[in-house]
């Protein structure tokens, strides 16, 4: 007997899996999502956040471009709060770019992308950041920024309100089957090691770059090629609108103003494993050089951190028969292809088209289950609650103007000053069992994503682990250090200019004022009962890293 049962298990907590979960729940199908890390911690959360108008694909990949046009318009309706409708420029800076232009214009026409040629003078008037190298400019009103974190959380929250479940830090270790039919999945909690079996009628593999690993558990092959992309975050928006280079898509040719920052993207390098994503100095340097060709201020802005994501490119050659809809993503019916009933994979694609991908694979699985309700994800908005408060979206405009100290007892309350995150934005997530680490709080609220990279808010968040989650001090302190270390990893590749000043303040605060390095050394020593007092009532004995996972998990 399985420990729990559901209708459909969705594996993968990126935009696709979250979209599938929501689609299933809107069709009234009982569903449970499992994700081996946090939601949006894989490809989705590490994307550059460009909401594609389709302009980038319209020459080489017309089908994908057309999908982007349609899906972009749908997202503007259903996921308004996840989108910054900035519009975008496609700029030419070289002879080769100019030669690309006729094909670009033709592609936009075929795909139905609104595209307007404007004079460089007019473009500079609208966007003074355009560099002196810019020779011609197209205005593409439907490019924008899509916040990948809010998109995933919004889909999952919408599904949860309809009874779906999501389990984070839950890895699939195997399947149960009855002959050729899947009857469930076996999972393991990656923090506690706890094993659970989940009975179900169907399983959807929505793990993107990891799809091959999941399929292999059933001894079937799904060929996904992991291709790394490196991004650089600048500390301010640099430009008002997205800027693309008008050429054959290449490295370092996208600038996306995203909330309080700008993101430069990206590179393309095949990697042996989706979790091996080294950031090379040449990649960072190249991105900044290329970005500076398009916009002033890229080379002088403070580069705040670098990160790498992995594209799940689907190897179409061998799988042509599994392809249902498009060159860019494929739904694989494993019953038809491999004789495993109740198992489907959705591979390839990109964040902009996540909804369509979810719709296609859910169509297949609904058919298996005999559910005839049609897909409504293109009509029902993500945030369809009655209450106006949208916890997922932090809105600086709502904060008002902080009062200068002197005239009032209190200032506008903020947990993270860099990203203007309020206590009420953070508090509910401390009650969510899916949230296990402070990085998970960051992904849901942007806390710690600003210029100080959690130097200040990490202490406040650790405090809340103790007061709101009743963790012991060492566990919360370890979590605080983990958040700082994760942020530090992204800072190191862009360590020049005022980054050094920031790092000195961060180190001064945590190592000198708090003596945190000694706190961590002390915690990692094997506990010696002769030296330690008995635990306080209601507390476990914190013993550093080992104690971390069970402690957090016990609050689930």
């Amino acid at each position, binding site marked *: 007997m399985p420990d729990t049962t559901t209708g459909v298990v969705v594996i993968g907590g990126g935009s696709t899996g979250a979209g599938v979960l929501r689609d299933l729940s809107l069709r009234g199908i009982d569903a449970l999502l499992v994700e081996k890390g946090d939601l949006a911690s894989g490809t989705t959360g590490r994307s550059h956040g460009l909401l594609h108008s389709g302009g980038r694909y319209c020459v080489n990949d017309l089908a994908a471009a057309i999908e982007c046009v349609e899906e972009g318009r749908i997202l503007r309706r259903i996921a308004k709060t996840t989108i910054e409708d900035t519009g975008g420029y496609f700029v030419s800076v070289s002879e080769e770019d100019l030669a690309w232009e006729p094909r670009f214009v033709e592609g936009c026409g075929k795909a139905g992308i609104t595209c307007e040629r404007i004079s460089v003078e007019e473009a500079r008037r609208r966007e003074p950041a355009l560099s002196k190298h810019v020779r011609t400019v197209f205005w593409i009103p439907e490019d924008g920024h899509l916040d990948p974190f809010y998109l995933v959380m919004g889909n999952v929250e919408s599904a949860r309100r309809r009874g779906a479940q999501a389990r984070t830090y839950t890895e699939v270790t195997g399947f149960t089957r009855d002959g050729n039919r899947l009857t469930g999945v076996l999972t393991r909690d990656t923090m506690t090691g706890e094993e659970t079996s989940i009975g179900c009628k169907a399983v959807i593999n929505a793990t993107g770059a990891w799809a091959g690993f999941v399929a292999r558990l059933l001894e079937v092959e799904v060929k996904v090629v992991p291709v790394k992309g490196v991004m650089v975050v600048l500390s301010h928006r640099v430009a008002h609108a997205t800027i693309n280079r008008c050429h054959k898509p290449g490295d370092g040719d996208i600038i996306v103003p995203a909330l309080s920052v700008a993101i430069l993207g990206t590179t393309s390098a095949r990697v042996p494993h989706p979790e091996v994503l080294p950031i090379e100095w040449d990649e960072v340097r190249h991105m900044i050089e290329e970005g500076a060709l398009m916009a002033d201020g890229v080379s002088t802005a403070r580069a705040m951190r670098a990160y790498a994501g992995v594209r799940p490119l689907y190897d179409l050659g061998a799988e042509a028969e599994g392809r249902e809809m498009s060159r860019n993503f494929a739904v694989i019916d494993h019953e038809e292809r491999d004789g495993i009933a109740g198992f489907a994979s959705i591979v390839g694609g990109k964040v902009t088209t996540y909804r369509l991908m979810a719709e296609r694979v859910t169509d297949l699985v609904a058919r298996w289950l005999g559910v005839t309700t049609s897909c409504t994800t293109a009509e029902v908005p993500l945030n369809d609650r009655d209450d106006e408060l949208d916890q997922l979206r932090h809105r600086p405009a709502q904060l008002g103007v902080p009062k200068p100290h002197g005239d009032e007892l209190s200032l506008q309350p903020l947990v993270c000053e860099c990203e203007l995150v309020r206590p009420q934005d953070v508090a509910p997530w401390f009650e969510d069992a899916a949230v296990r680490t402070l990085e998970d709080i960051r992904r849901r609220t942007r806390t710690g994503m600003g210029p100080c990279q959690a130097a200040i808010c990490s202490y406040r968040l650790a405090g809340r682990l103790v007061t709101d989650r009743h963790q012991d001090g060492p566990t919360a302190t370890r979590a605080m250090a983990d958040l700082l*270390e994760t942020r530090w990893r992204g800072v190191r590749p862009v360590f020049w200019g005022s980054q050094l000043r920031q790092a000195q303040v961060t180190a001064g605060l945590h190592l000198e004022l708090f003596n945190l390095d000694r706190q961590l050394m*002390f915690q990692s020593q094997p506990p010696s009962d002769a030296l330690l007092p008995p635990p306080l009532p209601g507390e476990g004995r914190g013993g550093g890293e080992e104690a971390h996972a069970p402690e957090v998990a016990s609050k689930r």
Partner: protein
Amino acid sequence: MKADVAVVGSGLAALIATRSLQKAGRNPVLIWPGLSSLYFVYATVDVLGYSDATSLQPVEHPGTGVAALIADHPDHPYARAGLDALGDGIALLMEWLEEAGFRWRGSLDRNLLLPTATGTPKPSCLYPESMAAGDLGRDEPIVLCGFEGYEDFVPELAASNLSRSWGRGDQSVRAIRVSLPGFEPGKMFTSIDIARNLENDAFRREVAQQIRGKASRGGDHVRVGLPAVLGLTHDTDVYERFQSELGHPIFEIPTLPPSVLGLRLFDRLRKHLQETGVEMIWAAPAHEAEVSDGQCRRIYLKSAGREHPIDARAYVLALEDMVDGALRAGVHSVVDPFFHQSLAHHAVPTERTDESLFKPQPFASIGYAVTDRLQPAAGDGHPLASNLFVAGGAIAGYDPTGTKSRGGLAIATGHRAAQEAMAA
């Protein structure tokens, strides 16, 4: 502008150098480039907390510890400055604080272990009296008190950690919280708000009464640790009143920035210098040193759109690493702003840091190589200018973070650089 000795910097090294010159009857000008590092990290003055960056055993006698360090590492800035400069500089600082109306405690004979806001014992050499009752060498049980709506000191976190590293027998740590007058759910405070409000008698008495009710449950002999918000301007005024109103010994614990302790200390010392006639030039970054015949003839300040030369007989560069812009880090080279020397070159920016934030960072050791007299040295070891001296964090080759020695090094090198400047 002409000057006797120009001191450039906004940290403790600059303050000590200026004071040393003033006390010796000289006429220093203090050029203050911007916000002081004191605001961020200073609360106590740490001379030597640990003998190295990996030791967990605190140094008990900082004076002896520094002497041993000097014997083992003749190139260390402490060795360059000399043990006497440290002793004399500390004597100068303690006397100065007293003259300025502040009460500080401590000496080179002993490090006190004081709890931090994470509940970690930290060895501290000099400290304001308002922190002294936190001494973890004492036995009284500790009650850590936080305020609703103030998240920059979390007593539950600190108490939970402290109870593991400290506490035998009767010793215990407990966390309590009180609501400040005017608090309502959703309201939040900064350290500055609370510090200012605690200067108000009625406000403070109400807070004291609340704390008394909760703290006394731990017995008559408890001591109460509070975030360092006991008054914005004076170091003992609010502390003393509050302590007598509360009826228990109290002690301050430094918090997240803005650090009220750093604010109080820096503002008081700066104002005292001004009250006693030292000329200060504010918020003017200094750059470009003009050198001829082995002497620095002038330095230039950037102010309001034009350059402003300062001609002094001698100069003390007492800049604190990166915080006040002493060093300019390009992608590959770190360059000093005065001589445009490349102080370090890195093929890849990643080389400047350790994989862990909590380990010694290569970038923190970047700075001027100095001569035995603290003059910035050229590659061949000769001084770049015979009348220019470096103090504080801008000296190469050491990182005070792991050994908790930033304050002591600032004092020793600041004092020594001032002596050298007078002799130049």
